[in-house]
């Protein structure tokens, strides 16, 4: 298979994943398009380095996450994590707080604010959690140990729950 065919196939098989990553981290449609293009460029450049040590999807996630982390440049601290209100995974993630599996608009807005207050790495991890990746896969993408990923996820969850709970009592 030629390099072009491999590229097209990789992009075609993973376009949904890449688009989701772009939607999580890029605030506007224009930024999403730029980020998407940047990810494709980096897939093209890295194509020869794929040795099949990991799944193609994990490899694509690595490129997508690394590109989005690099994309923000000097403004990286302002990197956003945009979650769709329809995203059921965020509700599952905070399941005990929202037993009816429904997030009201104002709750969602508050949650969005708290998500944006997370550190850059926590935002990256959250994006992968929302894509239902396992701790092992996240560890493989980010480059930290699996227990460390679990600790980070647990801490993010606790912080978000506490913040949401605290506000609910106010």
């Amino acid at each position: 298979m030629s390099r072009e065919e491999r590229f097209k196939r990789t992009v075609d098989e993973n376009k949904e994943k890449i688009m989701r990553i772009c939607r999580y981290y890029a605030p506007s449609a224009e930024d999403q398009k730029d980020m998407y293009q940047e990810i494709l460029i980096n897939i093209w450049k890295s194509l020869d380095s794929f040795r099949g040590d990991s799944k193609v999807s994990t490899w694509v996630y690595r490129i997508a996450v690394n590109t989005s982390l690099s994309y923000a440049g000097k403004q990286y601290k302002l990197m956003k994590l945009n979650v769709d209100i329809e995203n059921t995974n965020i509700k599952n993630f905070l399941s005990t707080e929202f037993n009816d599996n429904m997030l009201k608009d104002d709750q969602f807005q508050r949650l969005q604010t708290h998500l944006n207050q997370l550190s850059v790495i926590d935002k990256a991890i959250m994006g992968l959690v929302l894509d239902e990746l396992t701790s092992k896969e996240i560890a493989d993408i980010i480059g930290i140990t699996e227990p460390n990923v679990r600790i980070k996820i647990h801490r993010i969850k606790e912080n978000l729950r506490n913040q949401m709970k605290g506000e609910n009592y106010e």
Partner: protein
Amino acid sequence: MNNQINLNSNSNRIPDSHEQNNSIDIDTLLIKLKNEDARNLQKMKGLKRLFFTMIIIYTLFMIVNPDPDLQLHHRISGLFYVLSFTYFALLFRKYHNEFSKIDYSISSLEMFKKAAERHNLTFSRYLLVLPSLIFIDIAITISEYYRWTSVEPLNRILIVQAILLPIFIMSGFIGYLLWRKRQKPLRDRALQIIKELNKN
């Protein structure tokens, strides 16, 4: 295979006119990517040719030229120019490879560690440039030494050094300022992300 990718494609919706404009054509992108690769390769080849031509010209005219007017010191001076160009060409190739082959497919931690290293300015980086400067210094000193015959031999060397050293130091300082403006923020950002990743 659908080669048009719409970034707003929410499976059940029909994209509006704005969204329709917001799509990426993979085939067009592929052509751009291939052109870009070819351009980069061409640029690298051009620079290689330039260095190679300078090395050949200096070698032919200053070292192996059979002209009897060309004295030994001219040839030695020429040799040091050639050494300086060769060393600089190798150094350029090293940095070009380092910056053009950034691998985004490794883990984030590894990628940012490499970025921090790549954008760091260390004393050893300055030392790496030193041989090229020493070769240029020797080449200029030799050629000027035999030109200013009316001046005391030691003074000839000192005058050349008095001119060259401030130029080298100034160049080093300008390099530092450029690094501080362009590379340091990137290094600091990479270090910050590494710190965040390693935090439990």
